[in-house]
């Protein structure tokens, strides 16, 4: 990492590390105790550690001038390693909390390990730790290749990656210590949110600067999606997290929104986190790695345009479908429902475009597990967007809402679509940045593929059954107008499905562990760097 920086870049990095350490110290000192103080010390530790690393190597030999004629892949490699670390940790926590629903008596007696604190560790760890690192790492790779330009500078990618991971660590350790804003997917407290704004703006600026230096006349579709992801997530994050800290020195705050407005803002954020974090960004990934791996052109540029504008325009309206039959006015629910239905066609157009792109490469899908990951991702993307539009229809929602069907729907998207495309991208990227032709073990990729697919199917089918059973039991009345089942009976009915879900999650986790091992082994044997076509058009000889 340091060897890729010039002396002046190392000096700038050293300065930034010292500022981070000072900020951490100030935070710890101001808070004196509790979560915020622990987090201050974490930042101090990171700042001091980085300062020592940079300071110790500050006058080491500089990288040669040639580096400016190639892409900057060190941040991508770091991002992939973080992706895999978060994957294993957060999936393991997911399997553990799934097991607790089946064996609640196994809950240890410490408050830190209670279900309520561990569940957001799973969601944040997976969405932001695993998904976010994968998005940032691949976006740097894709941005450079499709722009034929090196990242605009060498410091901001590190600010983005290290700062982002500090945010993730603050978030999940905060939950363990009982600190939360109690907003779904936005649980981290105000100072972590402010920090993320700084990181995210750096990311956005870096992206734009690099794009501005591109040596290609047109901007490729993948970059439209990555940019939509970065821009809209910034907007969502800032608006939903507007809050007044109780004191500047405490990890508590009051949101400025209240009542049904708060609920609406929260689900406008929540659903668009799904739309722009978990969909747009990963569509960017799909749009690059699928044609690269299959060697096929994107099937239809026109379909890409319809999909992109359809997805970005319709998604932003649909958050209210999370609040059907609540205090939210009926008219807002109708809008959420109808826009969800109109969203289906652009979504399916994306999935269809991806699958049609594979025409002429089906033999590769059969033989290459990496490409198969991407194919399955496109199929699950189609399935879960259909399911999403369907569940958003009000009468359907009256059955599915508050049940495990929702959990199944989310996981068909996150396991089947998001994680599959990430693994496809990782298996394409890791050999490339290692200067190798292939991963160390292709059998391990096959194993991973089948574990991931079977895990996803077991999980999703179990949750469909669970959710529909719950929904039907809750709404059943006998001929006398009394409830046919008590709530506890519906809980008892869940036992087999919760066990199956745990098994499905376990299979998926096992696959991810294999992937982490395979990547570790491949990166360890790295020789040289990525073989790319020349960054700048070469003069004819």
């Amino acid at each position, binding site marked *: 990492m340091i060897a890729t920086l010039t002396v002046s870049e190392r000096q700038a990095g050293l300065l930034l590390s010292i500022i981070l350490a000072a900020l951490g110290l100030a935070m710890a000192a101001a808070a004196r105790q509790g979560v915020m103080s622990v987090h201050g010390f974490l930042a101090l530790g990171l700042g001091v550690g980085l300062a020592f690393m940079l300071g110790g190597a500050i006058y080491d030999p500089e990288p040669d001038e040639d580096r400016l004629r190639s892409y900057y892949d060190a941040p991508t490699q770091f991002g992939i390693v973080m992706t895999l670390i978060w994957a294993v940790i957060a999936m393991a926590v997911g399997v553990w909390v799934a097991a607790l629903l089946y064996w609640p008596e196994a809950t240890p007696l410490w408050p830190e390990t209670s279900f309520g604190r561990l569940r957001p560790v799973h969601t944040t760890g997976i969405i932001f730790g695993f998904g976010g690192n994968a998005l940032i790492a691949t976006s740097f790779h894709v941005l450079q290749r*499709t722009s*034929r330009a090196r990242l605009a500078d060498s410091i901001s990618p590190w600010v983005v990656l290290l700062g982002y991971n500090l945010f993730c660590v603050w978030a999940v350790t905060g939950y363990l210590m009982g600190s939360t804003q109690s907003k779904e997917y936005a649980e981290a407290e105000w100072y972590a949110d402010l920090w993320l704004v700084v990181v995210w703006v750096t990311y956005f600026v870096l992206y734009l600067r690099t794009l501005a230096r591109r040596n290609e006349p047109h901007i490729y579709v993948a970059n439209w999606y990555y940019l939509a992801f970065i821009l809209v997530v910034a907007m969502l994050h800032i608006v939903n997290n507007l809050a007044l800290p109780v004191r500047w020195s405490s990890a508590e705050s009051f949101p400025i929104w209240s009542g049904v407005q708060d609920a609406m803002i929260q689900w406008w954020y929540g659903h668009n986190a799904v739309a722009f974090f978990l969909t747009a960004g990963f569509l960017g990934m799909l749009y690059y790695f699928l044609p690269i791996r299959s060697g096929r052109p994107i099937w239809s540029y026109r379909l890409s345009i319809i999909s992109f504008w359809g997805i970005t325009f319709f998604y932003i309206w649909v958050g209210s479908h999370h609040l059907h039959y609540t205090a939210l006015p*009926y008219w807002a629910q109708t809008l959420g429902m109808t826009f969800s239905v109109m969203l289906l066609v652009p979504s399916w157009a994306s999935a269809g475009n991806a699958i049609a792109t594979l025409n002429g490469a089906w033999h590769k899908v059969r033989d290459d597990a990496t490409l198969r990951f991407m194919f399955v991702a496109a199929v699950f993307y189609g399935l879960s967007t259909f399911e999403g539009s369907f569940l958003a229809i009000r009468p359907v929602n009256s059955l599915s809402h508050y049940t495990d069907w929702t959990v199944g729907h989310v996981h068909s998207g996150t396991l089947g679509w998001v994680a599959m495309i990430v693994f496809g991208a990782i298996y394409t990227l890791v050999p490339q940045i290692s200067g190798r032709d292939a991963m160390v073990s292709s059998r391990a990729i096959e194993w991973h593929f089948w574990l991931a697919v079977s895990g996803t199917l077991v999980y999703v089918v179990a949750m469909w059954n669970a959710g529909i059973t719950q929904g039907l039991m809750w709404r059943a009345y006998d001929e006398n107008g*009394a*409830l046919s089942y*008590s709530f*506890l009976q519906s809980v008892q009915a869940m036992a087999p499905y919760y066990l199956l879900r745990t098994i499905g999650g376990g299979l998926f986790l096992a696959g991810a562990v294999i992937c982490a091992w395979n990547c570790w082994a491949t990166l360890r044997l790295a020789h040289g760097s990525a073989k790319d076509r020349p960054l700048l058009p070469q003069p004819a000889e």
Partner: protein
Amino acid sequence: MSKHSHREIDPVTGHETTGHDWNGIKELNTPLPKIVIWALILTFVYSVIAWILLPAWPIGRDYTRGLLGLDQSDIALEDYRALATKRQDWLQPFENVDFSALQADDVWQNNALPAAQRLFEDNCAVCHGMQGRGIQGFPVLSDETWLWSGTPEEIAQTIRYGINTDSADTRYAEMPSFNWMERPDRVALAEYVVLLGDGSVKPNAAAATLFSENCAACHGEAGIGGLENGAPALNDSSVIYGQDFSTVMQTLWSGRQGVMPAWTDRLTQAEINLLAFYVSRLGADEKQVAQ
């Protein structure tokens, strides 16, 4: 043919590319399939119809009401009333119930008891267990032992106002702390109470005196209970918290003040009476099962 004819044609699909190339990625200029356009139109038509029929678009401080004139609070109220009417037949009479008359009315019971069971499971089972068999720290309801009384009237009273609640009519029971007592005395007392439990109490003059001076006022002479003041009998192993030595020592040290919430504001009068009737029969049902 076309002005783009210089562009590369993809041999697999026969479509021409857009002429762009990003790190080897190309795009085909395939026209939109008709089905996509029709599907888009279909979802738009669905939405427009929904907007016409249902409340949909905000206009200033108002919104378009929709031709169907639907209002979700009205719908919810109507549904609720329809259900309430269905329940009327068998639930209404519970409002001012004559429990003894009810004991003989099979039809009425058959209609009401399944609903009562769900009501019990949804409201009481969290503490008392699905079959009312209790859990550690919460009393068994499926036996014949009662702190106050097992008649439906008295049970209804307990459900209505709770035990040790803020309600003015709450039942009140407190086992005071005996931490002021010398430790050897507490130990002697605890050993005595443990033995009371299985009836094998040995004549021990000192402990027996301690018991009648400090405990008998509430628990009855020799711990036979039955005073209906919330203090359990100590000779029938029905103590909620347990009657082993260390638990009794703990009870003597810290005292006990268990709480049962008041349900007046959560359940209707009729539902409370229904529950009381159901709970009063749990003991008898359990016995029948045992036989």
